[in-house]
């Protein structure tokens, strides 16, 4: 998968580049609108991660250009401008998703995976996790046909761990994910632990859940082969 990161802040572009490379993406970086515009014109990208606040270019114009040059590219808008206006305009112009800075790389990764699933027609709606069938579209989990009733947040955690499988997710990352409005996140609480405990209890009634691992004091990891 080819990804173009359009970000004028070099350090941030570097971190994103490092992360995406490790994730197995082929990653390219453009730090100005002009550079991005040229690259979009030449290369067929699968993903455009687009910072709207470019010094030399209106991000929304670049978005339009990208849509014309490459219909297939999935576009995620990254912006520090917290205004919902930008978000609405961006989505209207054909962006697939929107992430407000500062965002978590894990969040970026799971959003990208969600888009891939949607765009590239992973027709199979369900994913198998050690015998548990997780349906991303209907947001349900079942085991051998039997539904397991999870709360919204329990499902969110399960899905997020799955999207970032074999990687430790810290409490902070999980907290920020389940409280999508950062204002309501409570960084000093153990709510995530409570949710994981409940999740394990519910899933554990059907099968072993040792694949949902507690990693020292850091966080949790879903181990998948």
């Amino acid at each position, binding site marked *: 998968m080819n990804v173009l990161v359009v970000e004028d802040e070099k350090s941030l572009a570097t971190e994103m580049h490092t992360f995406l490379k490790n994730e197995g993406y082929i990653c390219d970086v453009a730090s100005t609108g002009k550079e991005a515009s040229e690259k979009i014109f030449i290369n067929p990208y699968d993903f455009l991660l687009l910072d709207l606040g470019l010094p030399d270019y209106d991000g929304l114009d670049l978005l339009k250009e990208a849509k014309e040059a490459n219909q297939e590219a999935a576009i995620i808008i990254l912006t520090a401008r917290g205004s919902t206006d930008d978000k609405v305009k961006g989505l209207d112009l054909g962006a697939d998703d929107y992430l407000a800075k500062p965002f978590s790389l894990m969040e970026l990764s799971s959003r990208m995976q969600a888009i891939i699933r949607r765009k590239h027609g992973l027709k199979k709606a369900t994913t198998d996790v050690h015998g548990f069938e997780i349906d991303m579209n209907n947001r349900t989990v079942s085991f051998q046909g039997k539904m397991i009733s999870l709360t919204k947040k329990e499902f969110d955690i399960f899905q997020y761990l799955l999207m970032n499988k074999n990687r430790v997710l810290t409490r902070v990352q999980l907290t920020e994910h389940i409280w999508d409005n950062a204002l309501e996140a*409570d960084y000093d609480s153990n709510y995530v632990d409570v949710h994981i405990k409940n999740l394990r209890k519910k899933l554990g009634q059907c099968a072993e859940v040792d694949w949902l691992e507690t990693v020292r004091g850091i966080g949790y990891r879903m181990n998948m082969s």
Partner: protein
Amino acid sequence: MAGFLVFLPGLIYDASITHIDTRLEKKKTNMLHLIRNKGMGEFIEEATDSTHGDSAYSDYTIFRENFVSIELVKDFEEDTIVTSPRDIDSEIVESRVLRHFFHYNNSIYLMEIGESMQYVKDLNLVVRQISLYILIVIITLTVLLDLGAIQYLLRPLRKIEAKLLATQRPEKFDYHPVITTTTDFQYLDKTIGEMMQKIQNAFSIEKEFIANVSHELLTPVSILQTRLENMLATGTLSEEAEMKILESQNTLGRLKQIIRSLLLISQIENNQAPKEDKVDIPQLLKDVASEIEERLAGKHISLELNVGDSFVLEPANRSLLFTLFFNLVNNAIKYNKPGGKISIHCRKEKDRYIVEVKDTGIGIAPENLTSIFYRFKKINTTGEESYGLGLPMVKTIAGFHNAEIKVESTVGEGSIFTVEFKLNTHETYNP
């Protein structure tokens, strides 16, 4: 004019007296003329009746109002004109009497010519009454005219007053000059306008500053966040280093929360927040309650929802209102005692819709009650983290929805936060 009316009866009285006196003088001349021509015999009779003793006496009355009498006296005196009561037909009548002494055939006679004052008094009374009525009418007219004139003259001042009353925020101030020819009013209007402009500038500089600073902070925070995540992802760090990174992530999270809160507040204050939703408040409160369920369970706190019938607020911003009530309920949990209670009540009053969030928490000291809504005032005493922006945000969001936020609290017993939405009022926003 009024003064004239007050003195008018007196003037009329004086004029009447002068008039009467002139008449009396004229009569006197006539009488003397008659006496000279016709002799005293015509008028005087020898004193034969008992009443008058030895004096000669003549009484000559035309009407009750007028009389002439001549009598023989011993001593000569100066002429006088006096007002004195007279017995006429056994009735005391106030009269103006001219007393004239004259010699005739070596005798001294006193001629008294009198005229009743009654009609003068009557006239005086009538004049007084009329004067009084006129006076009342004139005073009333004057007062009304004056009021009208004052109102007219002060019209520019009223306009300035109206402008100030209509101004809840400097940017809402009507900077059009009030049209007036009075330089004082022009000056006043101009000065107020300039002051408003200064305040507005100071406000917008502050708001812009907060917005810019917060915005500028987002990028470095993004870099730090992604860097920390990449460091953790390598998996080659020592456990100790990983724990440090975890702590840093936590700290960074709080920093993000502060920046986001500041941005949100400045966004609302700069009127950049949309207000296009219809929000059913009872339903919203139920949503908040279900979102916050786990936090309640974590502290064994029970939540009583008594929200009543649907009440739709519009235009509103659902996500902001959600944040408002979430913050209130979250605070009620945070500052509650384990096993405590929170109750949410809604009620509709004549002109307002009231949401009350009551907790059995630690309460707020009276000296802190006013400052809890200010940014970065830390009121927390429990040692739990408080970023001092939750309640300022609540206040800002309430203001954005033209609602008022109030708090009552007793230390050790709990607090009651009340949000009062004004009904049927238009968009007037006080930050």
